[in-house]
């Protein structure tokens, strides 16, 4: 007992290192439900996370009671904040980790570290925000749309692409936010038939009278096209990237992405330098 008291964790005396606000918290799930084909929505309450989080930032989630298999935390972007302290994660069940995550029920416990990384740089007043999402890439864009719609300083246009209508989720909530929404499905089962960047090409054929900023999250091929489009039209664009990472804290150096030619570093790290990057920073040839 005495041993415990003598070793009570002192607050670090150092202000160097990561000056950013982040917490490690154990939280009980409020809900965890399937809302589309392989797509789940998880919710929990955390005042600390909710008050510090910015759109585009992510969380490292440990699945359950410190299991050794799966061993590592999984990174998830923050899908949105509701009712002040309710944090949402929208995720695709793709492997053993997310499969285990999807089996958790209300009141089950997870450990969360966050908010991590750099979020989206918000548009300047009167700029038009064009959000482009592919599949689960919708996850961080919803949070961005929430914040932009709350501020009411920018027009928000959202292009979302899915393979099929069964994957289309969160549409009602997006409509409630009041964004201009366009949908595409590759099989044509809902909205425009084709891929989202084709629709973007049609609708954004020239620079237009209002200055726009593009925000994108989705598969690498989609992001590459968005980056090219932004370059062609001389628009600012920000992409949210994924990377295999063990820690999310800048120490494992697993989540390297090749920096564009002329950048000061050979690689950027998704967790630390991203996950949101100005698209010009990335070498799209090798992503």
């Amino acid at each position: 007992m005495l041993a415990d008291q003598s070793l009570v964790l002192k607050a670090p005396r150092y202000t160097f290192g990561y000056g950013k606000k982040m917490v490690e918290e154990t939280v009980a799930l409020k809900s965890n439900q399937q809302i589309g084909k392989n797509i789940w929505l998880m919710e929990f309450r955390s005042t600390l996370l909710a008050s510090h989080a910015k759109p585009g930032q992510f969380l490292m989630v440990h699945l359950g009671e410190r299991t050794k298999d799966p061993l590592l935390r999984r990174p998830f972007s923050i899908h949105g904040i509701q009712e002040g302290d309710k944090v949402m994660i929208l995720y695709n069940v793709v492997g053993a980790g997310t499969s285990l995550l999807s089996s958790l029920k209300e009141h089950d416990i997870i450990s969360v570290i966050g908010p991590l990384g750099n979020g989206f740089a918000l548009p300047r007043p009167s700029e038009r925000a064009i959000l482009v999402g592919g599949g689960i890439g919708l996850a961080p864009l919803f949070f961005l749309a929430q914040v932009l719609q709350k501020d009411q300083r920018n027009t928000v246009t959202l292009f979302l692409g899915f393979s099929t209508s069964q994957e289309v989720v969160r549409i009602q909530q997006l409509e409630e936010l009041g964004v201009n929404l366009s949908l595409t499905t590759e099989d044509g089962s809902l909205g425009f038939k084709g891929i989202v960047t084709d629709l973007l090409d049609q609708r954004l054929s020239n620079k237009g009278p209002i200055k726009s900023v593009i925000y994108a999250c989705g598969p690498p091929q989609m992001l590459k096209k968005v980056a090219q489009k932004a370059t062609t039209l001389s628009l600012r664009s920000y992409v949210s990237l994924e990377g295999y990472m063990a820690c999310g804290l800048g120490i494992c150096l697993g989540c390297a992405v090749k920096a564009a030619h002329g950048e000061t570093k050979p690689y950027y790290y998704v967790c630390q330098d991203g996950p949101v990057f100005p698209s010009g920073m990335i070498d799209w040839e090798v992503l």
Partner: protein
Amino acid sequence: MAVLPDLSVDIGDLKLKNPVITASGTFGYGTELTPFFDPSLLGAIIVKGLSLRPMPGNPPPRIAETPCGLLNAIGLANIGIQAFIEEKLPVLTKIEAPVITNIYGHTVKEYADLAKKIEKVEGIAAIEINISCPNVEKGGIAFGTDPDTAAAVTERVVNNTTKPVIVKLAPNVTDITTIATAVESVGAKAISVTNTILGMAVDVTTRLPKLANIVGGLSGPAIKPIALYLVHKVVAAVTIPVIGLGGIMDYRDALEFLLVGARAIQVGTANFVNPKTAIEIVHGLTDFCSREKVSNINQIIGGLKTM
């Protein structure tokens, strides 16, 4: 009033307040995890492996998870010794725990040059040598797989520093004890056992290796029994202290290594999963000793019983 158990251990001349050390490559340059706990409370910290010049690291994917394990081929990405001394060391010296630098080179001379550079600066308590890297002068065969080469590297570092030299052994060898005794004979003050174990993983859909480098080093709980065995063997073969590591996730894992004879332990992959692991192990060991009425941790070290 209960007396606190004494957790302090000696690694040669190096006095540690407890046997818990952070492993190279899993604790950044020492300050990244300060939002989670105060590194001054640890026995020592070993910073990211440093080379003579900055290294970009391997192309991605650099990591893959395997059952209870982590495969990595980071490629020893680091800022280089000069930038470390100029940018990282000044803040690191504020930490009230010994700072150990981990070094690696591609030639024996590079190791010697690194030792010379470190010798000139204050605030570094010891040098840990990574001998798992390819030796470009010997066709890329790792320094650590041959007793003579391992001894040659160690000797050159020892001759160029007054700081204690710790050699971190590679596990992919026929008989680790021959390497251990070879480095001991040329002046190593301690031995860290073990570095990651070479491994692979394949994506059967794409038929591609899961690492761009094809091969990587396996760490995490999956390798703990192997690491424990290697520590057991090396402890029996040398008289210098052995520092145990490989898959330590909590204080019970740490105790296993101490019982087998490790004088101290390193926490590696666990830092990625739970950044507070190292400090939780310090607490866990303190509580365990109090509970078991062990007044000094040295009473546990090497205390493995026989059936």
